[in-house]
């Protein structure tokens, strides 16, 4: 197939490029003539939702993005945050939802590849990865196939590249039946004075193409990712790229080696919309024009047209502006790693984006308007209706032990071991906490005591019931998970997955969630430094639950003091840190109501951000002072599930006794926010007293609710369950479903 540049531009062709009539008119006004076929492709690539954030930009601007430690906020390949000692953590989360649904292995693999490239493009060596995965219900005919493919793809790429996967999420819900979510997070370490940016500087400098060759794979991928699905989705398979983690690993080593030579002025990886997007971004950010000569681009297929080269999403490619005097040195490094190196253009001073192919100018467009001055919409939105608190007083009674067993062996609360054992969680030798705890923790190599904690969180059913509270909760839970290890939360990345923003109720979810995220981030000093928006997650007009995934990073001064979720010893007092001595009260939108009573009505638990901050600081200080022996935050499934998880992680039992109302369900399974469990040796009466008093002095309730020991978990008002039995039920669901 060769696509000529002289194809006539018809209304159908414009529409098939995802451009609306008013957007096309804007193009005509901008350039004063009909665009060439290649130019139409370039506009389509730059102005689609995925690359331009045209629906979300207005609202994203309201998020807090700065702070004393923030070196680089949103707008670059990844966010950069100072961690002291001249080092920075560089991180971002990005979705690869649409491709993963069409081709799960390659879609997920290239999602991981893309986010790793974003991180090392900035000069950082990747040290940790996470992934938040959401699938349809287990008995949906596609689910098993998608889980198998996505998990294998995430592992296949990350394991081979050599980054430990230290955390993540897996959730099942019918709203994802037609659109699975694959949100990939990566973090790397760099020296604060050696951060590389995409802004080109200097006129007449060589634009260099590095990495793998260009093929026809992924042509139009970013446009595909900005459209809804229908039943013909299988036909889009050729728009999914194919990953090559081996080449990416070589690209990492070559880039880091090259960066050390001082040759790199600007660097941008080729992700969505490949050569087009990377070249335009480098030029537009530097207020420079770019001229590309496509005849110099290394290709792996014959007779590729300009259109295809400009829109190819072939993986493992980079674009750089290099110092001319270092060209030979740079080329030698890339040759050593078996990678392509070609000068494909130069920077110019005329703010035009010019593309030459076989001696012909196939595109000549204003670079600023393509890039940072793309269209921006203020789409109409309606606030999501608020639900009243339902009356749960007439629920059928369920024995708490039965309820707990059912919850911890359910699709959504069972062990994810089947998934994370397919990921290399240990490589690099710095993993201090692997998946299964509150947060993944990785030691900072070369430093005696420092470590970084990572967590990825969102509770989509809360966001659906109340986007604002749900947005707050996603941030608060992530922040809480970091605190529960003893880490100081530094900053976060957001990956906003929603339906079609052209529908006012979906736009309302997006607006509400962003407002909630902003409010929580401000209250918790937890700025958003990078992120990604994935809209149009709909099939046949049915949208996913709104899913704003938050990936957070925290800093641990001394990892020898870090807390883990497993009980440390028998005879420890179990303390519940909470807001009031009502213990648990809020059942609406809980996992208990959903999974045991089939009820999904009512508002989510509200998040009191002042309390949240107090509780987190208290827990962190207690861990830092070496006062507690284990810590776990309360989330899905409430107190009962949290205690069970601490028991299962250690094999040590526990007995819980606290005053029970007539119906114990709200206390045991309520999902009230801002709560933690921690343990203190019971024998140390003075320490125990001090911890409780200190909590009270800070306006918290620290309740002594039980004790660790034995081999059984005993909840009030029900039979004891052996921890062994809990564990075997907890571990059984996933392998039973998949194998």
């Amino acid at each position, binding site marked *: 197939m060769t696509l000529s540049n002289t194809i006539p531009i018809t209304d159908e062709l414009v529409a098939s490029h995802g451009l609306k009539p008013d957007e096309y008119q804007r193009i005509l006004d901008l350039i004063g003539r009909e665009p060439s076929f290649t130019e139409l492709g370039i506009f389509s690539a730059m102005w689609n939702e995925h690359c331009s954030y045209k629906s979300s930009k207005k609202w994203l601007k309201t998020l807090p993005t700065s702070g004393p430690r923030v070196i680089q906020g949103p707008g670059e390949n990844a966010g950069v945050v100072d961690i002291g000692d001249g080092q920075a953590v560089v991180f971002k989360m990005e979705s690869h939802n649409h491709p993963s649904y069409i081709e799960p292995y390659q879609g997920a693999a290239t999602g991981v590849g893309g986010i790793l490239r974003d991180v090392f493009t900035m000069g950082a060596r990747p040290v940790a990865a996470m992934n938040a995965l959401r699938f349809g219900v287990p008995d949906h005919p596609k689910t098993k196939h998608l889980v198998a493919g996505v998990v294998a793809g995430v592992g296949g790429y990350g394991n081979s590249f050599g980054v430990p996967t230290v955390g993540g999420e897996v959730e099942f819900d019918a709203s994802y039946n037609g659109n699975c979510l694959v949100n990939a997070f990566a973090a790397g370490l760099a020296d604060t004075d050696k951060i590389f940016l995409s802004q080109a500087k200097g006129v007449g400098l060589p634009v260099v193409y590095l990495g793998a060759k260009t093929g026809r794979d992924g042509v139009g991928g970013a446009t595909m990712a900005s459209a809804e699905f229908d039943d013909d989705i299988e036909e889009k398979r050729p728009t999914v790229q194919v990953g090559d983690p081996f080449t990416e690993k070589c690209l990492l080593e070559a880039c880091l080696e090259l960066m050390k030579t001082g040759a790199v002025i600007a660097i941008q990886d080729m992700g969505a919309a490949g050569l087009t997007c990377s070249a335009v971004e480098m030029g537009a950010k530097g207020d420079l024009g770019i001229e590309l000569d496509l005849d110099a681009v290394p290709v792996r297929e014959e007779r590729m047209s300009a259109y295809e080269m400009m829109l190819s999403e072939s993986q493992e490619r980079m674009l750089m502006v290099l110092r001319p005097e270092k060209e030979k040195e740079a080329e030698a490094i890339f040759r050593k790693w078996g990678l392509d190196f070609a000068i494909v253009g130069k920077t110019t001073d005329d703010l035009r984006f010019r593309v030459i192919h076989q001696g012909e100018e196939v595109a000549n467009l204003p670079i600023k308007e393509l890039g940072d001055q793309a269209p921006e919409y203020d789409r109409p939105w309606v606030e999501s209706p608020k639900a009243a608190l339902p009356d749960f007083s007439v629920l059928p009674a369920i024995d708490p032990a039965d309820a707990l067993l059912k919850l911890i062996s359910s699709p959504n609360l069972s062990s994810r071991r089947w998934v994370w054992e397919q990921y290399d969680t240990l490589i690099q*030798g710095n993993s201090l906490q692997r998946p299964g705890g509150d947060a993944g923790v990785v030691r900072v190599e070369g430093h005696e005591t420092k470590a970084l904690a990572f967590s990825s969180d969102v509770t989509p059913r809360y966001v659906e019931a109340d986007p604002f509270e749900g947005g707050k909760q996603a941030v608060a839970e992530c922040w809480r998970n970091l605190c529960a290890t003893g880490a100081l939360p530094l900053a976060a990345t957001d990956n906003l997955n929603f339906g079609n923003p052209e529908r006012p109720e979906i736009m309302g979810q997006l607006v509400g969630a962003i407002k909630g995220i902003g409010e929580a981030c401000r209250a918790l000093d937890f700025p958003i430094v990078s992120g990604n928006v994935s809209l149009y997650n709909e099939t046949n007009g049915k949208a996913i639950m709104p899913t704003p995934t938050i990936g957070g990073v925290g800093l641990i001064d001394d990892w020898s003091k870090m807390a883990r979720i497993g009980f440390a010893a028998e005879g420890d007092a179990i303390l519940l840190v909470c807001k009031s001595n009502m213990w648990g009260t809020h059942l609406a939108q809980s996992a208990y109501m959903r999974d045991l009573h089939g009820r999904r009505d009512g508002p989510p638990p509200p998040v009191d951000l002042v309390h949240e901050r107090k509780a987190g600081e208290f827990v962190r200080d207690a861990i830092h002072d070496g006062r507690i022996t284990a810590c776990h935050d309360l989330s899905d499934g409430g107190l009962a599930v949290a205690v069970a998880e601490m028991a299962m992680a250690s094999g040590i039992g526990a007995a819980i006794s606290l005053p029970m109302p007539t119906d114990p369900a709200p206390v045991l399974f309520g999902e009230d926010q801002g709560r933690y469990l921690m343990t203190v040796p019971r024998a140390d009466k003075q320490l125990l007293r001090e911890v409780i008093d200190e909590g009270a002095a800070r306006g918290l309730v620290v309740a002594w609710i039980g004790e660790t020991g034995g081999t059984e978990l005993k909840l009030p008002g029900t039979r004891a369950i052996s921890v062994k039995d809990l564990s075997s039920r907890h571990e059984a669901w996933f392998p039973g479903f998949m194998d």
Partner: protein
Amino acid sequence: MKSAVILLPGLNRDRDMIAALTKIGGKAPVTVWQTDTEIPDVDLIVIPGGFSYGDYLRCGAIAARMPVMRAVAEKATKGVTVMGVCNGFQILLEAGLLPGALMRNASLKFVCREVKLEVANAGTRFTDRYAQGQLIRCPIAHHDGNYFADEATLARIEGEGQVAFRYAEGTNPNGSLNDIAGIVNGAGNVLGMMPHPENLIEDAHGGSDGRALFEAALGRAA
């Protein structure tokens, strides 16, 4: 005691291995690139884990044909201590320095977890700081660790005490014949093993059962 780590594109546990050798041996190993035809005079040569050449074609197959592997073979013939871990083991097999083959895990999935290893022969230069039959903890992380050899070969390596480590207590993660996790060559100077002792050598790893292996291999060299 001098050691060398062989580097090939796609290996990714080279940094883990270099860290382990440095921490335990007190001195950083030299690194030798795949196209080098000579290896400096060292007492221990290590091929670390990873996915050399992306595991394309067959695990270790392309790496085994790179120039540096001829130099490794020469050193091995001269009796220099050589150790290959994970992909390094696969490369040693493909290079013909060890008998047998590694197939895809029986589960057909990559697996990363901790297993128990039994020291099957504590008489080798790699294992003599463990006790015969000692159980140690060790992490694994691989997709192709399912050891296979024909009956005659299997009988020979079992008979000659060439099995250094076995997966113990029902922890065989990959379907390996006779629970084999690591073997030595007939001369006893070349070890290949799938598990990663370099990832269990200090408190931060949650244990240090892997240390004695490096102490033995490096100590011999001293």
